[in-house]
């Protein structure tokens, strides 16, 4: 290996240090010459004679030079250069052919580069933290909850008692309102984090310091760290802001640090915020609750394992700590669930990306086959040229090399153009990318992508160039020259090869079409499925009432007043407020509540999403009532408590009976006043449009379960966009310091919930369409080639009485045979491959007969069409002319 490398270096030196090598050679030979001359003089010759004799005996000076050069193999490279020039000249002579082949390759290579740049950014590039492989996410799970956040005190015990982690940090969503500095108040996306949070990630503030453990204690002054973009946008990049206080949620926070640009949020699960530069401000999490009550779980934990420790060891360690905690009467029913940060971040997009890579890979393969087909057609047109060159003594290897150089030139031109397409393509991809797509910010065309493109181009060139080159160079010299003289081309074996290629191309295209068809089918299913609510004509927004100014009662009063004011606006039909909106990834859960009359064992396993709703919440969102009644807004604060549940909860916990009137309780030993009565049942709404199951859920009236952070939904009889300004005004009227956030139409929310599916459908569909075009093109090429070849025969047939229709049928059946074989192969392969689509499909089986049949027919129809054009030409031809042309 080392020797190979040395030789390579020597060759390169010979090639690039050419002038130096030449001059050295010159000096070496003249040294020799001088010695010869001296020797001759020693034998008694005159100076001139001696030199002349030396020159004679040295032989052809330039010949030696040339041979030395040969030995240094620089000629080899010069030959390549000549081949290259020849290739470019030849390709330029048939611009139509060259443009078509380069364009098809550019499209597929470009698509590959674009998709690879996404894969590179999302899957291959390391996470933006030092030693990212040591970072893990720590969750709980249980029989009812697959992945659950921790209680802050459980986290603190983990942090104190573990032995395998270098450090550990917790974070919880804490959006805050920044009071207007001469402008409107804004909601900032924020997290409250434990001490040493940034240290655990391995990043540190550009100015100032990280949160410390001291800051976690109650009673300390509140501290905050700003993101770089917030610091620039809101504080004019003023370094003096360090140490000053700012008002967040009307409370004073001291700014202790400013993060550098590019400092990324690792993504979190509970009240999720996508990863990237998505967080505006971090505040200190303060442990100020009672550690005895650990029922509420809201902390996302991230841990950095000690060097050399695997996540299994970390898991075992934390499980042991959890066992200790259970002995201390906490953490009951939970297990530790550890997942590497990388997997957590990219896990859900991995399959889609690999499917996309597979799809573009197929597309490239089709483009290769197509290019091979075109080259074959052309090489048969060049049979004479090649025959003449072999007759003149060109070795077979030399001809293969020449033809391969041509395909390499084509491939590299395709790659160059493809890269340009990819530059634009990646930009388009990024705008189409679903909003919460992991690591979107890491996607760009970089040197790795360019290297990938180059390798792909070279492999492509070899792949599609080798077969035609070998075939062409194998041609029988005599026959070619003879056949050439007669004006006909190629042979039966060539046609067989081309038929084979076209069958392959059709088959591959069918695989892609099936994938696209299944995804289209899924997408239609998703669009047609009843979402359980009516997203049309609803304006939504979120408000967050800062705690110090709004206590329990004043929150209820505020929202009541706001809803009443909004209701008066023209065109407004109903206004509701609630803890969340459908399809926004809300994941608040309540487990282990009691059902009246059931055993403790039964109640331990109960689970449901908990929500809060105002009386008109369901009406505003168009969620129908199935049984019972909605809240009336007069539920007394101190009970009797009431709740509305969804169908799934009613069916799971009261199967076969009416749930209305039944009671549940959140208290382990409920007194009469602790019971909550079910007053209504509403239609199920899925977490996400493609969720396969629906979780039980209940809603508590806002008057009994107050919250300052609510979403508002306004249903209007006219265009809800027009209400946006009036909405802001209504809020400002009540509290000028309150920020209106997330102002969106419910339609937009529903649309973006399908963005992942739309994105993958769009791309796979695009690739499938390209594949179909290429396959049609290939079919056209083959049929039209064979028609050209048989014109003489057709003329003869016509002369002997065949009608145009007979010829048409003959040729069409040839095309049809090929496409039937191709489509059948493709459908069979697809049946095996579509299982890989897995969760990307919704409501359709991976071997959906309808899709398979439709794609089969589509493939047959287009390829038949492709063979119709040449068939028509044959049928329309004047037999006399065809015969005479020979």
């Amino acid at each position, binding site marked *: 290996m080392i*020797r190979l490398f*040395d*030789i390579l270096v*020597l*060759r390169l030196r*010979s090639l690039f240090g050419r002038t130096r090598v030449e001059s*050295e*050679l010159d*000096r*070496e*030979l003249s*040294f*020799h010459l*001088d*010695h*010869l001359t001296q020797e001759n003089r020693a034998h008694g010759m005159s100076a001139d004679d001696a030199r002349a004799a030396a020159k004679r*005996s*040295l*032989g*052809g000076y330039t*010949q*030696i030079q040339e*041979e*030395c050069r*040969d*030995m*240094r*193999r620089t000629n080899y490279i010069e030959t390549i250069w000549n081949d290259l020039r020849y290739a470019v000249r030849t390709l330029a002579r048939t611009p139509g052919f060259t443009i078509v082949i380069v364009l098809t390759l550019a499209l597929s290579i470009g698509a590959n580069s674009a998709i690879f740049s996404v894969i590179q950014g999302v899957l291959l590039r390391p996470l933006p933290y030092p030693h990212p492989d040591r970072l893990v996410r720590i969750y709980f799970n249980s029989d009812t909850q697959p992945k659950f956040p921790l209680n802050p005190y459980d986290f603190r015990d983990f942090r104190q008692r573990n032995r395998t982690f270098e450090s550990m940090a917790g974070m919880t969503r804490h959006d805050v309102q920044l009071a207007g500095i001469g402008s409107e108040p804004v909601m900032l996306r924020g997290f409250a984090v434990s001490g040493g949070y940034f240290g655990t990630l391995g990043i540190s503030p550009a100015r100032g310091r990280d949160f410390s453990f001291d800051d976690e204690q109650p009673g300390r002054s509140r501290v905050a760290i700003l993101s770089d973009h917030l610091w620039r946008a809101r504080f004019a990049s003023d370094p003096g802001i360090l140490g000053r206080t700012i008002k967040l949620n009307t409370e004073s926070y001291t700014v202790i640090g400013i993060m550098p640009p590019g400092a990324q949020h690792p993504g979190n699960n509970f009240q999720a915020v996508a990863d990237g530069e998505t967080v505006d401000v971090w505040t200190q999490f303060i442990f100020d609750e009672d550690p005895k009550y650990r029922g509420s779980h809201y902390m996302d934990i991230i841990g950095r394992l000690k060097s050399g420790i695997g996540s299994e060891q970390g898991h075992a360690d934390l499980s042991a700590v959890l066992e200790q905690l259970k002995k201390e009467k906490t953490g009951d029913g939970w297990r530790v669930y550890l997942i590497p940060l990388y997997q957590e971040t990219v896990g859900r997009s991995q399959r889609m990306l690999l499917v996309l890579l597979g799809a573009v890979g197929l597309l490239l393969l089709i483009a290769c086959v197509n290019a091979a087909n075109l080259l074959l057609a052309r090489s048969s047109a060049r049979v004479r040229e090649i025959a003449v060159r072999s007759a003149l003594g060109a070795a077979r290897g030399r001809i293969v090399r020449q033809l391969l150089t041509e395909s390499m030139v084509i491939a590299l031109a395709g790659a160059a153009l493809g890269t340009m397409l990819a530059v634009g393509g990646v930009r388009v991809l990024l705008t189409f990318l679903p909003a919460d797509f992991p690591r979107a910010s890491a996607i760009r065309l970089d040197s790795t992508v360019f290297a990938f493109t180059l390798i792909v181009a070279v492999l492509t060139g070899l792949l599609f160039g080798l077969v035609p080159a070998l075939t062409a160079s194998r041609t029988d010299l005599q026959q070619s020259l003879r056949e050439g003289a007669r004006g006909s081309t190629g042979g039966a074996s060539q046609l067989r090869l081309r038929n084979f290629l076209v069958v392959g191309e059709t088959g591959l295209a069918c695989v892609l079409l099936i994938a696209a068809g299944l995804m289209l089918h899924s997408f239609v299913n998703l669009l047609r499925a009843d979402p359980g609510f009516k997203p049309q004509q609803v304006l939504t927004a979120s408000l967050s009432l800062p705690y110090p100014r709004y206590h329990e009662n004043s929150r209820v009063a505020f929202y009541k007043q706001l809803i009443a004011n909004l209701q008066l606006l023209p065109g407004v039909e109903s206004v509701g407020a609630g803890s969340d909106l459908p399809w926004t990834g809300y994941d608040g859960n309540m487990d282990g509540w009691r059902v009246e009359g059931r055993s403790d064992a039964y109640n331990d396993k109960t689970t449901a999403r908990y929500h809060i709703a105002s009386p008109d919440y369901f009406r505003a969102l168009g969620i129908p009532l199935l049984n019972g009644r909605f809240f009336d807004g007069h539920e007394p604060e101190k009970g009797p408590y009431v709740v509305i549940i969804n169908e799934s909860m009613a069916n799971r916990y009261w199967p076969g009976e009416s749930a209305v009137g039944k009671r549940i309780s959140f208290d382990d030993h409920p007194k009469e006043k602790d019971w909550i009565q079910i007053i209504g049942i509403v239609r199920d709404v899925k977490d996400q449009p493609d969720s396969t199951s629906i979780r039980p859920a209940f809603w508590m009236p806002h008057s009994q379960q107050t919250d300052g952070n609510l979403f508002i939904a306004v249903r209007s009889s006219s265009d809800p966009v027009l209400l946006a300004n009036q909405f802001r005004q209504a809020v400002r009227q009540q509290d000028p310091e309150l920020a209106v956030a997330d102002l969106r139409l419910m339609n937009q929310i529903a649309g973006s919930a399908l963005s992942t599916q739309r994105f993958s459908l769009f791309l796979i569909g695009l690739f499938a369409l390209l594949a179909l075009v290429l396959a049609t093109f290939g079919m056209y090429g083959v049929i039209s080639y064979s028609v050209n070849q048989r014109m003489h025969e057709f003329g003869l047939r016509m002369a002997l009485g065949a009608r145009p229709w007979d010829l048409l049928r003959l040729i069409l059946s040839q095309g049809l045979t090929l496409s039937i074989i191709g489509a059948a192969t493709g459908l069979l392969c697809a049946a095996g491959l579509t299982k890989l689509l897995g969760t990307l499909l919704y409501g359709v089986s991976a071997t959906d007969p309808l899709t398979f049949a439709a794609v089969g027919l589509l493939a047959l129809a287009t390829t038949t069409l492709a063979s119709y054009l040449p068939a028509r030409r044959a049928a329309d031809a004047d037999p006399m002319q065809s015969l005479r042309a020979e």
Partner: protein
Amino acid sequence: MSKPSDLIQGTLDLLILNTISLEPQHGWAIAKRIQQVSNEVLQVSQGALYPALHRLEQQGWISSDWRVTEGGRDAKFYTLTRAGRAQLRKELAQWERLSSAVGLVIRMGASA
């Protein structure tokens, strides 16, 4: 490609490698040495010597550098590399085998 030579193909490489195995030499000295040691039987033509040197260098068996000769002139000296030494051993063994085989055949032929 190569010029007609008095030497059997391939033996020139062996001779060159062997000649410089003792100490680095320049082209002229290599040619002279082969000539002298073989009692003027083996005449290395310059047209064969230099291409061979360049080929051996490209193979990585010898390396070259410019040194000053005893006469005070710059000359390109060739040195045997580690890989070259291994190659020399291989070629010597091969040569022994070949020459003894040829010798055997000739003697058998003479006795027949």
